[in-house]
């Protein structure tokens, strides 16, 4: 019996999965891709389920924000507080420039859900920054 217990106790435990850290240049390239296309960084690392869920969250939030006639801010130094809104908006990456190109983020102030739409557009960009930081940590081996 004791021998059986010893056998169980000495059974090799599965080692925690620890990925090899990437070079900093590769990590930064990965994060740039993740910023431009939400979720891409996780997909390239191999966490494709997580990447697809992140992409769905950010892109659906962006689409809802545009659909609710939210406003996308440009870089304007005349209104200093708009710079923060611009920084939040560009977090969405390529969708921001696509929407700007097709004049989708003009914003209709008298639309009932204008404020919600604008908030959605800010928050989806900020969430994408968090997602890119998460990909950075995974790529550097700081996070399983």
């Amino acid at each position: 019996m004791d021998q059986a217990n010893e056998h169980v106790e000495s059974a090799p435990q599965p080692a925690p999965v620890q990925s090899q850290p990437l070079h900093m240049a590769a990590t930064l390239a990965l994060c740039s891709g993740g910023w431009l296309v939400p979720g891409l960084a996780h997909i390239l690392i191999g966490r494709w389920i997580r990447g697809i869920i992140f992409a769905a969250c950010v892109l659906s939030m962006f689409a809802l924000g545009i659909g609710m006639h939210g406003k996308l801010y440009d870089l304007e130094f005349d209104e200093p507080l708009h710079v923060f809104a611009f920084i939040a908006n560009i977090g969405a990456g390529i969708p921001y420039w696509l929407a700007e190109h097709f004049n989708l983020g003009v914003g209709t102030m008298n639309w009932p859900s204008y404020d919600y739409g604008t908030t959605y557009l800010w928050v989806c960009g900020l969430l994408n920054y968090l997602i890119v930081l998460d990909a950075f940590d995974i790529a550097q081996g700081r996070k399983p």
Partner: protein
Amino acid sequence: MIFSHFTALVIFALIVSTVFAMITKNEPREQLRYGVFVFLSFLAVAFLVGWLMYPLPL
């Protein structure tokens, strides 16, 4: 596209809680538990603040 305040809040809370849960937790069970907690916290705080603001002449 026009949503009610509550619908916009629920969709917002759902998306943000999903991302928060997947960023902060690693195990699927932990992610689910934390995501539900954050989602319900969003709703609870919104209801609480809404009722606190109700008597104010806004």
